Structures are given as structure tokens and as C-alpha cells.
């Protein structure tokens, strides 16, 4: 197997997961695609050296660095965070959709609920600073431990903890309907309209 084949195998195995991470990091499909492809091109250049270590960690870290670099360069440019008001509108519409689901067609209501929920999550993530967003994605989507997250972000474990804490607090404030303090999200979702109607 030559170097290119090894790289192709890596992309075939981890490409989809990297794409999802990239989307959560950017909140935009086009940016996510650019991020994945530019990172993979750079990885392919150094593949022989990268393959000797942990390619997945390398690519993940490269993606985060690239994302941070873009953010610094276009801080006020291409990506405009969803305004907090719009986020509230999304959350409110989700609640209304969920309420409608109790009286209308269940399948339609669930599908609409899922779309609104995804939009809400992406909009809430977009409100976070890049490092907090990266911590959330790495810790709770890629399921990395604190140490691995710290390595990926080139920071200390303490920074990861503090950033995660701040990010969760911010998300709770932005989307209280999504992140309830209850033990189960689905329970929260089911109870929420009822509680609201009470």
C-alpha cells in the first residue's frame, strides 16, 4: 500500500465524522466543506509523517487551528452569528411546533421539531466564541476527554474546564428549552409544553 492509498483509506474511514465536526465548528455547510478539504490537502502533503502518529488527532487539531485562523481573519465578515433575538424566535417556534404536534399529525410535528431543533443548536453554537465552541464540539460531540481536548486546543486542562463551564452556561442562557437541568432531555421536551400550558 503506498502513501496515497493509506490516505484514501483514512479519508474513507473518518471523512464523514470529520465533516460533522467541521459543520459543528463552523455552523455552515460551505465553510465546513472548505475546512475539511483544506485540512485534508494539508494533511496529504505531510501524510507520511502524519500517518506515523495519530492522523485523526492531527486532522482534528489542524481543523481547529484553521477554523480559528479563519475566524481571526474574517471576524466580522462571512460568518455572522445569529442574533440572540432570532435564537429566541427559533426556540419559541420550536415550542409552538411541539405544541401543535399534540393536536396535529404526529409525524409532521416531529420532523418539523427536529429541523427547528437542529437550527436552534447551530444558532446557539454560533453565539459562542471559537474556543468555547471547539470545547463543546470536542468534549460533547467527539467525546474527547479533557486532556485530549486540551491537546487538540493546545491549552491546559484547566482552560478546557473553564471554557466548557462558560460555554454550557452560555448555552443554557441562550436555549433554556433545549438544555434543561432535568436528568433527561426527552422528558424535558415532553413536559415543557404541558408546563407552559399550565
Amino acid at each position, binding site marked *: 500500500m503506498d502513501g*496515497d492509498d493509506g490516505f484514501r483509506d483514512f479519508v474513507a474511514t473518518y471523512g464523514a465524522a470529520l465533516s460533522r465536526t467541521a459543520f459543528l465548528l463552523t455552523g455552515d455547510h460551505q465553510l465546513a466543506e472548505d475546512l475539511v478539504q483544506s485540512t485534508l490537502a494539508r494533511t496529504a502533503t505531510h501524510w507520511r509523517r502524519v500517518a506515523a502518529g495519530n492522523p485523526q488527532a492531527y486532522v482534528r487539531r489542524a481543523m481547529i487551528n484553521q477554523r480559528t485562523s479563519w475566524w481571526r481573519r474574517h471576524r466580522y465578515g462571512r460568518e455572522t452569528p445569529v442574533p440572540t433575538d432570532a435564537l429566541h424566535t427559533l426556540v419559541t417556534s420550536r415550542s409552538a411546533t411541539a405544541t401543535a404536534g399534540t393536536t396535529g399529525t404526529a409525524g409532521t410535528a416531529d420532523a418539523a421539531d427536529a429541523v427547528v431543533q437542529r437550527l436552534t443548536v447551530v444558532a446557539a453554537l454560533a453565539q459562542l466564541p471559537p474556543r468555547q465552541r471547539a470545547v463543546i464540539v470536542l468534549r460533547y460531540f467527539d467525546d474527547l476527554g479533557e486532556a485530549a481536548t486540551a491537546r487538540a486546543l493546545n491549552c491546559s486542562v484547566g482552560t478546557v474546564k473553564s471554557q466548557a463551564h462558560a460555554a454550557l452556561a452560555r448555552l443554557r442562557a441562550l436555549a433554556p428549552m*433545549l438544555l434543561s437541568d432535568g436528568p433527561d432531555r426527552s422528558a424535558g421536551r415532553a413536559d415543557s409544553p404541558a408546563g407552559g400550558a399550565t
Partner: protein
Amino acid sequence: VTDQLRSLLRDAAATVPDYADADRALRAASRGRRWRRATAAIAAAATAAVIAIATVVVLKPDRRTADETAPALAGPVYPAVLTPPERAAALPAGGVGTAALLYAPCVRDCAAFLVTDSGLQYRLPAVTGGPPAAGYSLSPDGRWLAWPTGSGVRIRDLTGRTTHDVVEDAAGTTSAWAWSADSRWVLLVRHTDGTAHRVTVLDVTTGTRHRSDPVQHPVAVRTDGRVVGWAGDHTGTGELSTMDPVSGESTRVALDLRSAMRPGEVVTYGDLDTLPDQPLAMVTLQASTATDILGPPSAVLLLDLDTGRPIRRVDLPESAQDNANTSYWSPRTYGPEGITAVHSTAERTEIVQLNPDTGARVVRTTLPRDSTVVLRGTRR
């Protein structure tokens, strides 16, 4: 909350397509490698071109011949530190470029080295029984090197192959005694038992030479080829003469430097450095001490060669000659860059330029201790 968040994130990313395209990434990487290689090649070529041009400009020997007009005076390029090389080529017959100085890193039993303005060092053979660098003389522009040959003096162009041999038939020792400030004339003096017997003035640009008997003690040659003679003692009084070596005619003026001298100081006229474009020369005053008639140099005077009067006195840094703190200042030349002096200490030898107005000192070159140094326009 974290479980909720995990679930929400997975839901949000569930419909994200797979953007990863390995072949596209490989093609982009290949393009990047080609671009980097091309850029590196262009950068390497550009760097090589710059180095080549710089090398040609800096190191190209000056191919001018003696028939051409003498080059404009340019200051010597002193290396910050001069260390005698373990191995150095002997001075070749061809051009090596103008010289900044020559030196020997010892008093005896070592080689002397010619240092070019481009920083190269060439080994010089000893030509006298004294210190290795003794007997050599450099023109003020660093282009001409003179040394005794036993029967006379050889003067060679360091930027080409021109040489002038001045052969004396009389007994004694001939040396290149002084240079005119524009480097055109060199004054050769034939000494026997310490007395000047004959002077020869050589025009190095044409090879023309004029011989005459000295009217007085010859000390300098002016830019028109006339020889400056000195008669008198060390007290600062006497007579200054200017002799045309072709016609033999001379003019004389009374010399009186006492108004610029301090009690106990004496004049040493053997080394008189003429200045370019002005009828001025630098003479050195030495302070006599209780134990030594000629103490260390204490000041330099600018002397008007036409009037025989001093026009400026510049005090030198104080020399110290006790064993604990040796510091000896030897002024060599006076020019636009100030007074160039050789400063000898127990640790090192330095070429220092002194600002006559402010007294500021700038160390131009550091050499090993006990080095003997011959600067441009001087014979020691």
C-alpha cells in the same frame, strides 16, 4: 445536561454530508508541492544571483593600471577583529584589491599579513631584521605597497601588476619614508648611519622619479611632488623647507611650535603626516618624563607647512606605562574621519579613531596584544 447536549449535537450533525474527498485533497497537495518547489527554485536562483552580484562588486580586484588617474581617496575598511589565520596564501603577483592595513601579531618570529578592504589576509615575508611588518609602507589610498629590497625599494600596485623598482647604487638603506596625501608621490630616503644621503621622489602613476640630495632632514612629500624638510631640534623651533626635486629650488620658513606646546613636551618630526587638499601636516608631541626624555605621545599638532605655525592642538588620551595598567596611544594619521591611533594595552592592540572635536573614541579593529600595525599612509 451534558447528555442532552451530546444528543442535541448528534442530531444537529446527523444530516451533514461527507465532504471529505481524498482525491481532491491529494490533487491540491500535489499542486501545493509543485508550487512550493517552483517558489523555492526561484528564491534559490534569486539568492544566488544576489550573492554573485555582491561577490563581484565587493571582491572584484581593481584592474586599473598605473596609467590611469589615481583613485579617489576612500577610507579603509577595517575588520572589527583581526585574528592571524593559521594558513594564509602569500601575496600573489596579481591584483588583490586595495589594502586597509598590514600587521604582525607579534614583535618577532611570526608572519606579517596584508589585510585587504574586502577582508582577505595575505602572508607577507619579513623584509628587515626588525619586527615582521617593519619596512612595509602603504599609500594613503591603500593601493600601493612599498618595501625595501636590499638594494632599493619595490613599490607594487595591489590592484594590478604594475611594479616600480628603485635601485640605489650608494651604500645604506633605502626606505619608503612618506607618501603624498593623494597617493601619487612616494618619498624614498637613502640613509647611511642615520643620516639621509639621498632622496628620490617617485610618481607611482607614471614611474617618473627625481633624485636629489636632501637640503634638510626630509619628512614629507606634498601633492605637487615637493619635498618637505625639517631643520631644528625637539624644542619646536627651527626651519621648514619645501624643495622642488626637479629644479632643486627650495623655500624656507621659520618653524615655531612653542605656542602650542606645554612644558616638558618635545616634538618628534620623523613622522609627519600630510593632509589631503590642505598644506597641513600632523606632528606628534611627546611628554618627557623624569626617567625618559621621550615619553608617550601626549598630543598632536596640525602644522601649516607654508607658515611653519601650529593651527590646532589635540590632546591624546593619557598613556599609562606601569605594569598594572599599560595603555599606550600612538597617533598615526589625521584625516576627515579624525585621528587614527594605535592603542596598545596588556590585553590587546586596537585601531582607534579619535574625534578631535569631542574626544569620542571609536574602536575600529581589535588585534592581538603586541601587534605591530602599519596603516595607510604610514611606514610603521
